[in-house]
């Protein structure tokens, strides 16, 4: 695997291979010295155009546990604020000879674009509302640990699907693993033609009891300004996953950070059905596996296919 840009590029065997490798890294976290030398001497550059503490530190920790050197480059306070284009930023960073660039941007397709401009391996850590492939992989990994095989499982993704890259990547990944996915949320927050991804679309939680896994999305407060739902109160009344709605057999997931009392009630967050902290833990080992996949097989200094031109 040269880059990880999109779940669309992965088949079931690749997803399983990454999950299996992640499982083999899991015990590292329990060692006294939480490090293996797999990527010693490699440089991983975190290039983040959006605020992110969790994903960035998860990648950072993953790289460090593999003994890679990590440089964090965030858009605020950098040349980006002085008007440098994405291309020029990447060409500049290439001079630091990174082996991998982990990139998050608010723009769909940007990670793929960056892959055109750098000889480094590119890992998409979120491109606009398009995809967040490592989130999907860590969610698949978590479910495989928790419930095993996903073939035939019913997974409901509930909430603001419209603005969610997690929803898109997870629909694709869960389906690739054999699950049947339903997305559910306010009609104003489900994109038209969402069923083109192969999932079912519902606007009420009426059939939620049939789900094996309930995956709640973060309801972002800033959506309130744009009148997507009348009030948070009404949103919670219609879509909140709470003790009344969550069945004992169901597994509850959430990409974090949770808004207690909005998309999830406090009681379900704290229930043993919730695997939310397990997801965070999985994040590190899955990202270790992804970095290993894109880096371990490579020659030390991969040559770019063509000298990027500054035009």
């Amino acid at each position, binding site marked *: 695997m040269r880059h990880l840009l999109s779940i*669309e590029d992965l088949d079931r065997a690749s997803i399983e291979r990454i999950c299996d490798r992640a499982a083999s890294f899991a015990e590292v976290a329990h060692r006294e010295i939480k490090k293996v030398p797999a990527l010693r001497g490699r440089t991983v550059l975190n290039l983040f155009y959006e605020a992110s503490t969790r994903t960035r530190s998860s990648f950072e920790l993953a790289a460090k546990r593999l003994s890679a050197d990590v440089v964090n480059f965030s858009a605020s306070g950098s040349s980006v604020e002085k008007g440098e284009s994405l291309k020029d930023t990447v060409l500049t960073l290439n001079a630091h000879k990174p082996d991998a660039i982990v990139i998050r941007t608010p*723009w*769909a397709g940007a990670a793929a*674009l960056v892959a055109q401009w750098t000889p480094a391996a590119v890992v998409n850590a979120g*491109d606009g*509302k398009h995809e967040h492939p490592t989130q999907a992989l860590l969610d698949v990994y978590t479910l495989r640990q928790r419930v095993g095989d996903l073939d035939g499982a019913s997974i409901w993704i509930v909430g603001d699907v419209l603005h969610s890259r997690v929803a898109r990547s997870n629909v694709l990944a869960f389906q690739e693993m054999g699950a049947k996915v339903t997305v559910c949320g306010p009609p104003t927050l489900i*994109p*038209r*033609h969402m069923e083109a*991804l192969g999932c079912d679309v519902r606007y009420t939680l009426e059939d939620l009891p049939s789900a094996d896994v309930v995956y709640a999305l973060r309801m972002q407060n800033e959506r309130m300004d744009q009148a997507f739902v009348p009030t948070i109160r009404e949103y919670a009344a219609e879509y909140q996953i709470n003790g009344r709605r969550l069945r004992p057999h169901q597994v509850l997931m959430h990409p974090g950070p949770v808004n207690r009392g909005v998309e999830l009630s406090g009681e379900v967050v704290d229930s043993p059905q919730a695997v939310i902290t397990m997801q965070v833990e999985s994040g590190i080992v899955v990202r270790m596996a992804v970095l290993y996949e894109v880096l371990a097989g490579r020659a030390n200094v991969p040559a770019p296919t063509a000298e990027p031109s500054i035009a």
Partner: protein
Amino acid sequence: MSTSRPFDPASALVQAPAPPAEVLIASAHVLDPRAGIDAPHDVLVRDGRIAEIGAPGSIAAPPGAEVVDGRGRHLLPAFFDPHVHLRVPGQEHKEDIETGTRAAAAGGYCAVVAMPNTDPVVDSAPVLRSLRDAAARDARVAVGFMPAITRGLMGSELTEMAELRAEGALGFTDDGKPVVSAGMLRKALQYQRLAGGVIALHEEDPSLSGSGAMHEGAVSAMLGISGIPSVSESTMVARDAALAGYEGGRVHMQHLSCVESVRAVAQAKEIGVRVTAEASPHHLCLTDEAVRAGHAGHGLLDTNMKMNPPLRTEADRQALIDGLRSGVIDCIATDHAPHARDEKESPFEQAPMGTIGLETAFAAVHTELVVPGILPLALVVDRMTSGAALLDLPVPGIAADVPANLTLVDLAAEWEVGEDGYESRSENCCFAGRRLRGRILLTVAGGSVAYRERALVAA
């Protein structure tokens, strides 16, 4: 103020002086659907005018005249584009009058109409005058201008339409932006009774299109890109057709992109509203699948496929083709919209909207619609010239004793778009890399040779 001076159609188009053509195009297949010509002929151009049309081999070249072998080639009336962006003043890094009209000539056009969304906006007589002066120096083919309906394209105050008209305005448009306020457009339509000139409309309801970057459909859902719904266009087409009907005004709907808009124009025409419409080669030939079909996998997106209105679905494309065939859509207009490479070389959602189109319009429509037998060549030639009529200008035609506006094409010649670069200053072409059939060999515009394909230079 010179509002008493009447609009003069004869001087509305401006072109740089060039030596009049002296050329015999021998034995080309001459096709001019309006003149009813569809057979091989000799066509002699003397002193920039069509002097004689005769049977193949019947006309001897006068001394000093160039002879162009037309055998196996088609001679058409040169095309007229009512909708291009020449980017002057203020955005000369994208295009200027010289490069834009060179692109037009290379595409077989004898005249283009420039939009006013420049910097500064063409919204006053002095700016219009300076542009006409520049065109009189630099334009290789005739250029006409459509100044803005509202000052600064801000949608709140009318421009001095009467004075602009007297200075040669072919019509008025806020292209690039809609006239959001119905009340504002109504005033423009009322004022049109004084000023004259068609009001051309970019139809889009910004409360529906929002921050959309492509057609709202299955592809945008897959890509997680905010969509521009087709109703953001069609509701405004319907609204403005109703306003035009109420005021008895005359409107032209620019770059229709969807089935609902075609329907709205058809209904308006049925009840006698004075409305015309155009469609662009990219909307006639491509769909939203092209946004990511250009490259395999990885979510890599092609910013040359980003334009406003956006490429829509196959059903929309078919509706545009049907509209062109039935005459609901009056003409083909390129909406030639150059952008610099560094502007397009950015993430899709950040890239500016637009594609260049002058150099590929005929070949694209010929390849996608004529070669497969979807539309007859004669209809395409009609729709690529009829834009002149919408603006009360003479339509380019092939007849004795008219100014020579001709283009010689090789319908069988295949070429790859972009392989030899572009005449335009910009290269943001949605057809880049495609193989097209139909090559412009020679363009005579306003009586002068404006373009000659390299093969023809050597000959």
